């Protein structure tokens, strides 16, 4: 188990080194800090999303759910579309990344807060009811975005379209710093719940039986997941699709239920996938495609391989 983790760590370090140093131009004192910033953003969001997806799946005892179902991705798109629809392309919330970031994270947290109040205020409502409401809300946000997108100027739409895909190319330095701080604080807070995760994955009844303060833990984890997703989405755009892939890969590769191993495993795989994907996008395809396409392609191929192998066995 240790060996596999070391292997992943080495692979991640290699990919990061490759990203930093391959094709480094002569004026490296300009290029290197830029690349470093990019790698930092990728590592941060990749790690956050892997972690969020893993604990979300543990909470729901479901291997095919992602935090996407609460509707945060669609809300992000709705906010971005609405900003351009209502205020125009050259308005402050559209051009100033700081304002946009604050606005997006703020609204997302407000949304999660509302959802949370609504669901947990009444006894008897549970986590799955919250997911259901989130799913419905997500669909509604999606339809509203589409509605506004068909109304706006086609040129403005291109701007909106640019936000539909995660991009690490122009990450704002100050925002990156703020994100690092927020994510570090959240990670620190999440530490105190890590001992519960293994037992939580047995399901609610076993968890309660084993003395886990179930409601307290689940509510806290939910907020942690929401903050992680909100910050990483606001920073680089929607890439939660990645979580499902890397967490399942981690389960396949690590072959354990222990979160102490799964968490670093999933985070490392996520970093390898994102940095590697970005490397291919930049060096092989010279920015002609996006990292989402690469990840989806490789991920899809891997899942097909898994399916074929399982059906043979």
């Amino acid at each position, binding site marked *: 188990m240790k060996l596999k983790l070391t292997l992943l760590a080495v692979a991640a370090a290699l990919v990061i080194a490759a990203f930093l140093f391959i094709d480094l131009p002569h004026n490296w004192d300009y290029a290197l800090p830029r690349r470093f910033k990019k790698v930092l953003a990728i590592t941060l969001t990749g790690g956050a999303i892997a972690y969020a997806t893993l604990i979300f799946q543990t909470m729901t*005892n*479901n*291997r095919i759910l992602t935090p996407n179902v609460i509707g945060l991705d669609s809300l992000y798109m709705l906010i971005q579309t609405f900003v351009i629809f209502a205020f125009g392309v050259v308005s402050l919330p559209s051009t100033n990344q700081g304002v946009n970031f604050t606005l997006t994270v703020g609204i997302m947290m407000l949304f999660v807060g509302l959802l949370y109040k609504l669901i947990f205020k009444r*006894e*008897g409502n549970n986590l799955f009811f919250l997911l259901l409401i989130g799913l419905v809300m997500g669909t509604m946000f999606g339809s509203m975005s589409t509605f506004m997108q068909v109304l706006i100027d086609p040129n403005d739409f291109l701007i909106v379209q640019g936000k539909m895909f995660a991009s690490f190319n122009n990450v704002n330095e100050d925002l990156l710093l703020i994100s690092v701080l927020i994510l570090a604080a959240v990670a620190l807070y999440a530490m105190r719940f890590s*001992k*519960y995760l*293994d*037992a939580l*994955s*047995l*399901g609610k*009844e*076993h968890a*309660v*039986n*084993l*003395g*886990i*303060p179930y409601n307290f833990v689940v509510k806290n984890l939910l907020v942690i997941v929401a903050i992680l997703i909100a910050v990483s989405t606001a920073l680089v755009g929607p890439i939660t699709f990645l979580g499902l892939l890397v967490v399942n890969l981690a389960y396949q590769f690590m072959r354990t*239920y222990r979160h102490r191993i799964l968490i670093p495993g999933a985070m490392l795989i996520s970093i390898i996938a994102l940095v590697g994907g970005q490397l291919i996008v930049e060096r092989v395809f010279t920015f002609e495609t996006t990292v989402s396409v690469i990840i989806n392609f490789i991920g899809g191929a891997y899942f097909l391989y898994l399916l074929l192998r399982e059906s043979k066995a």
Partner: protein
Amino acid sequence: MIEVKEVSKAYGGKPVIENVSLKIREGCITSFIGPNGAGKSTLLSMMSRLLQKDSGEVLVDGKDISQWKSTELAKKISILKQSNHINLRLTVRELVSFGRFPYSQGKLTKEDWEKVDEAIAYMDLTDIQHKFLDQLSGGQNQRAFIAMVIAQNTEYIFLDEPLNNLDMKHSVQIMKVLRRLVEELGKTVILVIHDINFASCYSDYIVALKDGRIVREGSTETIIDSDVLEHIYDMDIPIELVNGNRIGVYFK
């Protein structure tokens, strides 16, 4: 000491348990019997804090279960539900080791592992302890879960239909184990059971529920009685004495 005081529960305005009060006897097997929908499982779930009660109190050592610290309560009472499906791929030994969670918070000490080994040996699972749960039969699975509860080492053990889907051989095996738990380890076992004959042969005390209320409670001999059972189940259940056991012959 477990005492239930005036506990009620309603689902969507429809009462399932109404003002039930009950004292559990120590060092006994207490069986909850009654027709489907009588509220047996609901009562058991409320007593073991899996389900919130609408009103009333469930006192464990004089303190309501909602006032207990979760980990402390988990060292006092344990519960096993009828469907134990787990999404993880675990070996028997890994599952049983979860029983030590209240004591170790996931970091098992040498002593914890000794308890795990004891529990595995107690349930006769040593040979298959490294097998995955999904490779085992229903009876072996049930034994593995009971081993987990044994490792949890609580004074009170709640079981919701532990014989569900088991054949006669495994049912007898499980009931004998429960009997041993009471006699050898001094545990108190409270279970929901449908088969009145198993209840009759293995329990010390029987609580009969019907329509969300306790209709009768008492020692096994007083409850396994034609008149009493007719009142509970609304059917004729003649009782025969077979080798000293009171057996209901209700099949025809």
